[in-house]
């Protein structure tokens, strides 16, 4: 009997409160997916972040590789050349700036090699 009552109450409560409210349009209207809402460069940035690229505009300081001639630090650029600022050692008080051109790996005064690699713009 108790379970029957519970069924009746639950069933009616569900119908009258939840369903009818939704039918009458009382349920909250939700907004679309924010990624679908975005456009242009903003969307490209969001998509890049989603795909695991946390630096889509190459704004962060590059992690240095071995820096030998065979294993240079790779510098991405959408252009034919990019200025590199070499922090020659961790205690360096000045940055060594050098132009790096496509197809011409370059060696900093400290001996570290850099190479320009092509990157398609976002």
């Amino acid at each position, binding site marked *: 009997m108790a379970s029957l009552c519970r069924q009746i109450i639950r069933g009616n409560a569900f119908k009258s409160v939840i369903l009818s409210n939704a039918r009458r349009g009382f349920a*909250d*209207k*939700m*907004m*679309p*997916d*924010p990624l679908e*809402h*975005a*456009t*242009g*460069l*903003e*969307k*490209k*940035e969001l998509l890049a972040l989603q795909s695991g690229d946390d630096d*889509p*505009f*190459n*704004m962060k300081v590059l992690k240095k590789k071995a820096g030998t001639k065979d294993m240079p630090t790779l510098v991405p650029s*959408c*252009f*034919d050349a990019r200025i590199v600022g070499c922090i020659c050692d961790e205690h360096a008080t000045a940055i060594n700036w050098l132009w790096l051109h496509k197809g011409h790996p370059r060696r900093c005064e400290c001996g570290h090699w850099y190479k320009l690699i092509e*990157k398609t*713009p*976002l």
Partner: protein
Amino acid sequence: MTNMNNHPYHLVDYSPWPLTGAIGTLTLVTGMVKWFHNFNMNLLILGYMITLLTMFQWWRDICREGTFQGKHTMLVSKGLRWGMILFIISEVFFFLSFFWAFFHSSLSPNIEIGSMWPPMSITPFNPFQIPLLNTIILITSGVTVTWAHHALMENNFSQTSQGLFITIMLGIYFSILQAYEYLEAPFTISDSIYGSTFFMATGFHGLHVIIGTLFLLICLIRHMNNHFSMNHHFGFEAAAWYWHFVDVVWLFLYISIYWWGY
């Protein structure tokens, strides 16, 4: 060399609004001087029209750039945030100068005003009547704007509009009550230093409430036009920051000018 870019900065297009804005404000100030001297408002009204049209179209362009052209990357948004923070800080110092004038005059009242505060024969407002109601209204509006913000962050369209709508209504209610109190005031801005500091501080606060209400109203209209998403709504956040600032200024006004100065 490609001519494509790979940077997150927003290089703005050429825009006529800085020029029309300069012309508008020049006309506005010249028109105000003309009004003061000749009692003729024509140039002032022209100045208002040019300035208001500039404001409308400049901000409309910013909405378009952010919402429909996707120009507001994270870095651009960060710049907008800093801009709003610095703007509000400058406003804090603006109000600080009014409070300075108030405390300068009230903490050691001159012989000319009877060496007392409120000055001799000034009847101030009872702080536990309309001003207390106004305090409650503004604190409540702070709650409802937070409700709208959380609804927005949870993707809830309906509750964002409801929260914003109630906040705007409370803002309008506050302005109406302040206007009513100004009409009923037993002293004027020319009644001693009391009237001067009182109407300067509360008047500028009232102006800020009206600006904040308009800012929130624009947010509601933009929300109704689906300009916002759960992670792209800085216009709303800036309006909410501004509203909280106006709210906090009122608390200081209430405590020092209305209550302590009663």
